[in-house]
């Protein structure tokens, strides 16, 4: 017959991870453990300049003096940082003139993920910097971008080719002292993406990076830096899937965005790392520091994220609104299922005059998961006429999951206007029955209802990503409603 509350939820939530496969490519791996020698090894492997090695070593020293944060609403076994290998790269790193030269194994992986690079080239004009473990192996559209003076490359390459830019901006938004995981990342990051949009240039295509954790027992410490010079615009997409693993994998990325005068950065993420099995075994620990600096006047930074993966997520894409009239936005859908735990949200720090920020957060909890929104809206003394609007909605799919909201508001300027709205609702049996009565089965009904709920956020995603995100929401919740 139709559905039994918990039963339906059970089904939706017990859907196995669809992208759980591994690729057999030989890896060049550092021995496990972390010390100065390992950092020197990483730096040497990457032929880095001395200043960067010193920068890493200083970060390591800072990290050693820090302890892991405990304030998030998540519980997990603390990772053993000495049991992780901090460097792994596909052994025979190919130098590619075209995608046809790509390792067939890698091609297969990408095909499984539905990322056919040529397809994307042809259909959507997306330039893809594909990260297999820690080293970029394929970059497309580079020449076309180069004509406009846009730099879009791996971080390693940027260090070699554009050291002055990297040195100028690296660590300026997320300093090494910022937090435990940011310090660790600064010490050991292996690769990531670098993007620079010159003055007055509107990037004509979405820039995209697909991340993939492939090497068992390898921490992923990606470092992304996006700089939008005066009056420029860029839309950047980041999407992730990872193979099924039994042991926990740590991911501690740092993403820094800098928007100068009149510049705009739109940063979209679809995150689908392995969340662990339905009994809560395995899964990725995702401890990411993402922050954008609206450094210039009239600048704008917009974060959009669809988070369905990871066993534990700790992530607060934030905006520092320093320039007068600057704008910060955060649109988020976070889905947790089975035993997943997510503590995610944003920080909007208003410093400049007439700055405004918008926060739309849609949490969806199923199974026995815990889903928390944690957000800070801070209006500094200098921020005359600052505006914030926050809306935090939670949708519960079962009786055993949890949704929590931790909004922090600090206002030090009387002219500020801050609004906060929050709702919690349970998926309606009436809604599901209505769909059933029209011939739509339960899973499709849930997919429809959930996508409708998250529409405000999904609409903010670039077209090609929105479709993927909708599928992901459906897959993540398949079998979970009742």
């Amino acid at each position, binding site marked *: *017959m139709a*559905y039994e509350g918990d039963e339906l939820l059970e089904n939706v939530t017990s859907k196995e991870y669809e992208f759980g496969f591994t690729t057999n490519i030989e890896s060049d791996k550092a021995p496990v453990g972390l010390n100065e020698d390992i950092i020197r090894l990483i730096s040497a492997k990457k032929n880095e300049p001395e200043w960067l090695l010193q920068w890493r070593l200083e970060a390591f020293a800072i990290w050693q003096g820090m302890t892991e944060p405990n304030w998030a609403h998540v519980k997990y076994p603390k990772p053993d940082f000495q049991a992780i290998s901090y460097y792994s790269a596909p052994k025979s790193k190919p130098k590619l003139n075209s995608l046809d030269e790509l390792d067939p194994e890698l091609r297969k992986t990408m095909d499984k993920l539905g990322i056919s690079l040529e397809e994307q080239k042809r259909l959507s004009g997306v330039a893809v910097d594909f990260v297999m473990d820690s080293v970029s192996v394929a970059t497309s559209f580079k020449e076309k971008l180069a004509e406009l003076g846009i730099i879009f490359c791996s971080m390693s390459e940027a260090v070699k080719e554009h050291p002055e830019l990297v040195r100028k901006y690296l660590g300026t938004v997320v300093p090494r002292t910022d937090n435990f995981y940011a310090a660790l990342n600064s010490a050991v990051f292996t690769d990531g993406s670098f993007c620079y949009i010159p003055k007055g240039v509107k990037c004509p295509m979405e820039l995209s990076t697909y991340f993939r954790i492939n090497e068992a027992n390898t921490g992923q410490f990606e470092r992304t830096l996006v700089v939008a010079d005066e009056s420029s615009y860029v839309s950047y997409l980041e999407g992730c899937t990872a193979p099924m693993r039994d042991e926990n994998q740590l991911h501690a990325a740092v993403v820094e965005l800098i928007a100068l005068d009149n510049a705009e950065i739109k940063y979209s993420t679809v995150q689908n790392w392995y969340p662990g099995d339905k009994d809560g075994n395995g899964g990725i620990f995702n401890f990411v520091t993402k922050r954008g600096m609206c450094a210039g006047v009239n600048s704008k930074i917009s974060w959009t994220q669809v988070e369905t993966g990871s066993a534990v997520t700790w992530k607060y894409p934030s905006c520092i609104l320093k320039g007068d009239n600057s704008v910060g936005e955060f649109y988020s859908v976070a889905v947790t299922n089975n035993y997943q735990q997510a503590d995610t949200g944003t920080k909007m720090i208003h410093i400049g005059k007439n700055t405004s920020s918008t926060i739309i957060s849609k949490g969806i909890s199923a199974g026995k998961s815990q889903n928390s929104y944690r957000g800070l809206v801070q209006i500094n003394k200098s921020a005359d006429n600052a505006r914030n609007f926050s809306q935090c909605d939670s949708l519960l799919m079962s009786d055993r999951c949890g949704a929590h909201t931790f909004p922090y508001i600090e206002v030090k300027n009387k002219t500020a206007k801050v609004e906060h709205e929050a709702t919690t609702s349970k998926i309606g049996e*009436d809604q599901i*029955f209505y769909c059933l*009565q029209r*011939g739509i*089965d339960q899973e499709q009904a849930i997919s429809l*209802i959930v996508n*409708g709920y998250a529409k405000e956020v999904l609409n903010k995603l670039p077209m090609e990503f929105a479709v993927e995100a909708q599928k992901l929401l459906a897959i993540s919740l398949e079998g979970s409603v009742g």
Partner: protein
Amino acid sequence: MLTIKDLHARVEEKEILKGLSLEVKPGEVHAIMGPNGSGKSTLASVLAGREDFEVTEGTVTFNGKDLFEMAAEERAREGIFLAFQYPVEIPGVSNMNFLKAALGEVRKHKGLEPLSAKDFLQLVKEKSKLVELDGQLTNRSVNEGFSGGEKKRNEIFQMAMLEPSLCILDETDSGLDIDALRIVSNGVNALRSPERSFIVITHYQRLLDHIVPDYVHVLYKGRIVKSGTKELALELEQRGYDWIKEEVESI
């Protein structure tokens, strides 16, 4: 088409249907009337497959198949359509996507390919005219922000799109003004055919002025206690239900 025999159903511990029998043949329109709490809406819910109701006794066959062997969505695909008394709102889900999904399932069940986007829109255009909703549905979420009348018209529009063989109208006339009642009734009448049957649940004779039934049944305390033709509805309008209650109690 539909044969209900000695149907008993309860919600939680309360028995609501207590031996209801009804035979509906293709093309017939049966009106079901009765005082509040007699079990009219329960009958609609049980036929549609709502799980809050437990069937304890009796059988229902629909086109030769055991209805209770089918899940709610299968019943819908087999051709049972319930026009809800209180159509639910589904925020963020566009009417078009919703209908496309529903029609796709119904067609798949019949072994048909999904309609092309062009044909689908053409069909929407054509069918929405039936209830004077043309041009008002695109860009809106399912029933969200609809007036009471619009919701009911939308139900009939969906019915027209899905082309069911058995249509159950659960107090479709409730909350309608005279104009909306006329629009909804015209829509329903346009859908009448020798193959399609209707069960019209209503409190009021006025609906039956527009949708003229072949049979009128009075449901009381979970059973059909009196059946007749459309004249019975007129009599009920004049005399109320007390005389029927007395008849039943005296037996």
